[in-house]
């Protein structure tokens, strides 16, 4: 099967890293002056040399985002349907060896969650799960999608990698987007963070977006977990991946997310936290390189950061998120995947978006049936 893997195998992490860190002031200036920017320009904009140009980058980013997306921010809510997981990801709350109660939502519970999210105003939902192929598999997802499409105009999923046929099935059922993050494009580092379970197979995960694209899914979401490896190099790799996908599966849209690693109890991670400044650089660099990318920001980020990100180039946001299965109807936050930083309600977030001069968009899709 033709896939990104063939292209990936020709690259060398250290070589790309060296090139990014070797970018000079003149390269940044050249990239800023251009109208259309390529991957070499992105290297310059991601490099430490671009740091002094952050305000200029932000202003260009805001302008081209408004041209392409208008003054709008799309709102969505994640719905965690299961925290069962057979993978060991040393940084994740759902990791197999973590001694936490496991739960998969029943049909009744799915409906309960759906009706609460609807009452909160949501029309776009993102189904999230761990990887438990015996119980939470294509049959489970198909049933869940069939139930939820009565409530929502747009359904996305962020679950374990599936086969092309399974993605085709979900496409026919009305699933709009599929998100699969590579976490890191550094093969050896990937191995240390994902020692066991199906997810340990780096290549299978890397070729997942190809299967999603071949299945004709409308939108494909990529991302790296910022902080596992050098974020600049990882982000450039992610752009290489996107560039390949956009050219190959040209009928699909693409979105990117920017989850940052943070130290937390019970997780094994001692990396360096990416600073706010660096995250702004990353968001703007991606926008300057690719005006059409949807850029998404989760409630992992702080209130202050999210409030400012609205006018920086971000195009979609979650709000009032619960990261535990049944979290919207449950009283307490238990069993969660990661703790969230922005606890404000969807209504509050919507007000803040409006106060920044942007329109909070709750519905921007329609599931078509024939």
């Amino acid at each position, binding site marked *: 099967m033709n896939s990104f893997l063939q292209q990936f195998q020709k690259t060398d992490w250290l070589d790309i890293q060296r090139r990014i860190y070797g970018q000079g002031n003149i390269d940044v200036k050249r990239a800023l002056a251009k109208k259309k920017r390529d991957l070499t320009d992105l290297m310059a904009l991601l490099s430490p040399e671009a740091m002094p140009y952050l305000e200029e980058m932000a202003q260009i980013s805001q302008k081209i985002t*408004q*041209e*392409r*997306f*208008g*003054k*709008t921010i799309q709102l969505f809510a994640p719905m965690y349907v299961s925290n069962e997981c057979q993978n060991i990801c040393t940084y994740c709350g759902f990791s197999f060896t973590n001694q936490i109660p496991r739960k998969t939502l029943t049909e009744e519970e799915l409906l309960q969650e759906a009706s609460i999210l609807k009452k909160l105003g949501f*029309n776009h939902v993102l189904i999230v799960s761990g990887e438990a192929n015996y119980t939470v598999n294509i049959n489970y997802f198909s049933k869940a999608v069939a139930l939820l499409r009565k409530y929502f*105009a747009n359904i996305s999923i962020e679950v374990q990698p599936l086969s092309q046929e399974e993605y085709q099935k979900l496409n026919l059922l009305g699933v709009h987007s599929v998100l699969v993050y590579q976490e890191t494009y550094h093969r050896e580092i990937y191995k240390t963070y994902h020692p066991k379970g199906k997810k340990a197979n780096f290549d299978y995960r890397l070729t997942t977006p190809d299967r999603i694209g071949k299945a004709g899914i*409308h939108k494909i979401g990529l991302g790296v977990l910022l902080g596992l490896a050098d974020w600049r190099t990882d982000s450039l790799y992610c752009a290489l991946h996107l560039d390949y996908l*956009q050219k190959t599966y*040209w*009928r*699909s*849209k693409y979105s990117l997310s920017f989850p940052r690693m943070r130290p937390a109890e019970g997780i094994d991670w001692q990396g360096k936290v990416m600073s706010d400044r660096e995250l702004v650089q990353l968001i703007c660099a991606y926008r300057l390189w690719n005006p*059409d990318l949807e850029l998404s920001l989760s409630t992992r980020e702080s209130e202050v950061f999210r409030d400012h990100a609205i006018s920086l180039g971000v195009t979609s946001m979650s709000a009032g998120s619960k990261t535990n299965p049944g979290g919207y109807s449950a009283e307490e936050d238990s069993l969660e995947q990661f703790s969230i930083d922005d606890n404000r309600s969807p209504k509050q977030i919507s007000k803040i978006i*409006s106060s920044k*001069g*942007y*329109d909070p*968009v*709750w*519905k*921007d*899709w*329609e599931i*078509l*049936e*024939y």
Partner: protein
Amino acid sequence: MRNFKDILKIADSPFKSRLLLGTGKFGSPSEMQSAIVESETEMVTVALKRVDSRKKEDDLLTYINRDRVRLLPNTSGARTAKEAVFAAKLAREALETNWLKLEIHPDPKYLMPDPIETLKATEELVKEGFIVLPYIHADPVLCKRLEEVGTAAVMPLGSPIGTNKGLKSATFLEIIIEQSTVPVIVDAGIGSPSHAAEAMEMGADAVLVNTAIAVANHPPEMAEAFKLAVIAGRLAYESGLGPKGNTAEASSPLTGFLND
């Protein structure tokens, strides 16, 4: 509103205003509302996907006065004729109109319209009783083919949607305007009032503007600027513009000796 010599008619419906507005991309619904009012438009496009037909009263639609402004639902998001036809029927039901802006763009990056699927869908929708206004490339042959299957107007692009680049397709637009028997509405790429005036001077029947107004610092004022530009352009067209020359005509360096 200014009365022109010729009133614009689309599918037998008269329009005094020759400016159509898109309703996406505005920073708030009230800003959109003011822009609609200031532009004095009589027809606005609404993306079906943005309308919540499950609600009794959709938030966006409450800001549009349907007594003054006709809704033109669009099928934005459709990638094939099949999807577009389905979306059109949903739109007809949800918005209670058989007018339709047909948009089929399988390419989500530049939103380039698919000519093959668009022709197919137009033919089918006309048979189903829709008044179809298709968004297309500035392709003169496609326009004639669309006329043959009963399109109510054609909406060729000036340049890619949202780019504000103006009439990059001017050469082809001129041919389309020259040959068309249905109204020609220049859609997409009109980034400033001068672009709109240029299209009108060229003889376009109307223009559709969205991004340039929606993301302006002051959308209502920009809407008014576009209104004036469209009027100016149309008046100039109706009044007969003077011929354009490539060289100055003050002297005749080669043949002047004949007069001596």
